[in-house]
């Protein structure tokens, strides 16, 4: 009886070994077949590059103060744009008519990093002989709430000196593209000195802002 049991066990053991071999072989074969189907090649990786185009639009791309003068006996004049139709001039006679903030809209289909650089700083734009009582600042704010997210601390919502160094200032690491939260204002504040160099007087002085969306 014990002999019969041993023989039966032996047959079963051999059957299990053969079954394991077949199972291993089938696994190996099917795996290689499956890998070829999903990768297109028997080894290596699928490397897929999706190209997305960033796109910004400026519905208002100019802050133009036209002509004016610092009031007599004043240390300076300040010219500040505040969003739409709320510009303010103090101690000077520049007109605020038509002076609005610049508006940048992300019209692409992907968030982008927003960087701004100016071609001129205060001294190059306003030309104070004494080098005092002049400033040229910008202030980036959300026109639509949460348009500019992941902001560097202190960069959004306050007037700071413009940046003329290469690369400019990064205001938004993620400038959103979603409807109703894809627009920002760029406001400008100028402090005009009373002692502007004569070569600057009477002619239009212009600074160009480069807005880069990457």
């Amino acid at each position, binding site marked *: 009886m014990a*002999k019969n049991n*041993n*023989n039966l*066990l*032996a047959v079963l*053991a051999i059957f299990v*070994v053969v*079954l*394991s*071999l077949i*199972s*291993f072989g089938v696994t*190996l074969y099917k*795996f290689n077949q499956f890998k070829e189907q*999903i*990768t297109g090649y028997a080894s290596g*990786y699928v*490397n*897929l*590059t*999706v*190209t*997305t*185009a*960033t*796109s*910004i*639009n400026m519905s208002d*791309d*100019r*802050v*133009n*103060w036209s*002509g*004016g*003068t*610092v009031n007599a006996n004043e240390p300076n004049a300040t*010219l500040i744009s505040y969003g739409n139709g709320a510009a303010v001039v103090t101690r000077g006679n520049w007109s605020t008519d038509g002076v609005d903030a*610049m508006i940048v809209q992300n019209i692409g289909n*992907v968030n*982008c990093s927003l960087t701004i650089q*100016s071609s001129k700083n205060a001294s190059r*734009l*306003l030309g104070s002989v004494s080098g005092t009582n002049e400033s*040229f600042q910008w202030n980036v704010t959300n026109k639509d709430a949460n348009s500019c997210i992941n902001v560097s601390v202190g960069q959004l919502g306050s007037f700071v000196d413009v940046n003329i160094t290469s690369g400019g200032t990064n205001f938004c690491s993620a400038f959103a593209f979603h409807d109703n939260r894809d627009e920002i204002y760029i406001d400008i504040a*100028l402090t*005009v000195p*009373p002692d502007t160099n*004569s070569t600057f*007087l*009477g002619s*239009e*002085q*212009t600074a160009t*802002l*480069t*807005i*880069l*969306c*990457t």
Partner: protein
Amino acid sequence: MVSDKAIVVLIIIAILLSTVSIIFTLSSTSSFDRIPQINEEKIPDVDKAQVSLIINPQPNTSGGAP
């Protein structure tokens, strides 16, 4: 007539083969996490804006010619 030892050896071989098969399957399928690799390439956009003003000379307040 098959000895007990031979049966044990056969069963151990079967267990080893099954173990190797399972390890191979697991190690092979773990590489699926790395494929496909999708990269995003953005094309940047640049726009220009201008700030301009004219600073007129202050009028002469000394009273002018006599």
